[in-house]
């Protein structure tokens, strides 16, 4: 029996999810398919994590995190591999994406090569309940795959940032990202970037020194259907009393109606505020000027 080594991967998506839509969930499906079918099947995606941003991000129109988390949970009820993690939303301050990645990689500690059984029992003694549950889950899926397809088990889980091409391009926006952070995100973790039609991420990577350097760590998946669905448009449709059925799961639509979340007023939230990362960056710059 041929032994194939597949690298287990977890995909982390950060964003407002204001609200979550079918398009967000499509990103995960597309990314997983891409990683499974490219590079001669080098990867195995074992988990997807949706991490809604904290209210402290101060984006215009951002509704309370508890709602955004609840809606995402409803949307993912039927998914057997994607889950919502509220950690980021529960923090007192806005967290840079790199911090969220660091937080989640705590649950996917790379372990030295040794027999799987030994590894797991040693590891399990030292971790918290939450981490245990996470490991059990990914271990089970690994074992499943292992027995059916003869894959070698490895606990080196790679955590990658899942995003759209617009996020990739936002790396070029002044003061939105710190250079060291981009370096860490792309260099240490890696990116899976799903691009919509009309964007050319290859070009953008080529024009950026940092991104070019870590080209091998950036996986580009193409969204083959023209699907311009954005949460902004969903909110607009809601304000105007238009139907949003089939753009998001019914359970999320019901929740929105029940709690009357998106209104003309909710869209005005934070309208006089500056986006948190921009605020932070300008503070840093000012300090340096002193």
């Amino acid at each position, binding site marked *: 029996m041929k032994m194939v080594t597949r690298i287990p991967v977890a995909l982390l998506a950060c964003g407002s999810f204001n609200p979550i839509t079918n398009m967000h*969930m499509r990103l995960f499906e597309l990314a997983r398919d891409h990683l499974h079918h490219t590079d001669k099947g080098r990867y195995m995606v074992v988990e997807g994590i949706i991490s809604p941003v904290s209210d402290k991000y101060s984006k215009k129109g951002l509704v309370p995190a508890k709602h955004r988390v609840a809606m995402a949970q409803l949307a993912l009820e039927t998914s057997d591999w994607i889950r919502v993690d509220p950690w980021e939303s529960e923090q007192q301050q806005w967290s840079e994406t790199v911090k969220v990645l660091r937080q989640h990689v705590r649950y996917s500690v790379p372990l030295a090569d040794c027999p799987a059984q030994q590894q797991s029992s040693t590891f399990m003694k030292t971790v918290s309940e939450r981490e245990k549950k996470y490991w059990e889950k990914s271990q089970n899926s690994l074992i499943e795959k292992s027995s059916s397809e003869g894959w070698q088990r490895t606990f080196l889980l790679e955590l990658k940032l899942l995003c759209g091409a617009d996020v990739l391009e936002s790396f070029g926006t002044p003061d939105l990202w710190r250079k060291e952070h981009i370096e860490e995100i792309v260099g240490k973790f890696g990116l899976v970037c799903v691009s919509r039609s009309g964007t050319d991420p290859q070009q953008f990577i080529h024009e950026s020194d940092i991104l070019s350097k870590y080209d091998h760590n950036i996986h580009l998946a193409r969204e083959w259907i023209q699907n311009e669905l954005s949460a902004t*448009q969903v909110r607009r449709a809601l304000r105007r009393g238009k139907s949003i059925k*089939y753009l998001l799961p019914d359970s999320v639509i019901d929740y929105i109606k029940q709690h009357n979340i998106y209104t003309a007023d909710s869209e005005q939230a934070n309208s006089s505020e500056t986006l948190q990362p921009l605020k932070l960056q300008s503070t840093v710059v000012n300090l340096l000027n002193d």
Partner: protein
Amino acid sequence: MEKSGERKEVVLLACGSFNPITNMHLRLFELARDHLHETGKYKVIKGMISPVGDGYKKKGLIEAHHRVAMAELATRSSDWVTVDTWESLQEEWVETAQVFRHHYQQLSSNSSEYNKDDDVILIKKKKRKLEKEEAALEKTVPYRSETKGVPELKLLCGADLLESFGTPNLWKQEDIIEIVGKFGLVCISRGGTNAQKFIYESDVLWKYKNNIAVVEEWIPNEISATRIRRSLRRGRSVRYLLPELVVDYIEKNDLYSAESEEKNADVILAPLQRYTKDANKNETKK
């Protein structure tokens, strides 16, 4: 007469392969209803999905009972859109105009139960009259102004259907005139220009352009069933592009493979076969 300010009742009818049904198909209904309600003139009371029969012989068309089952699962959560199986149950392919006549007859007979007798007679007379009208179609007045109490039946479609009116031997001219002239169209179009262009370039469509409502689709959504089938053949995920229940059904019944796509590969599409035959017959008569 209708009171001013009273909305005219409308039933939206979508004909197509639905092979399989997708979220895009379902969105058409929602967009159309929103649009018609916004004009203040209409009240959409029902949406109908009418999957085509196997007799259509389109390449890759899987069995009607599956397509109907998937559409039914897809509309389970809707309180106004339903699936009608009449067309799918016919052995031979049925022209869209005939599907419309059938459903209009149903709607008429349903509402005529509540009308006075003379109205019933009036409707029956109209029906007989219309059956003889193929030659005098130009003078035909739209149904809506003559039969009160019967909802208007409109064809719900995308711009691609408008475009298909121009494909040789796919449609009978009289049918196009009947569908657009008597019933009316609600056409969902991305970037309106496509639909407007087809209307402009066709004399028939131009003549009845007041019967064609073009609805702008601001959230472009091109989930084509062809691409869905392609993805499925390649073992890719189609989750969140179709309703969950439909995705599960496809998985459970193992639908859409390379084999299923080859179905009818060597057969000619029913309308092309029928209309080309008629054209040839006419040729030999000369």
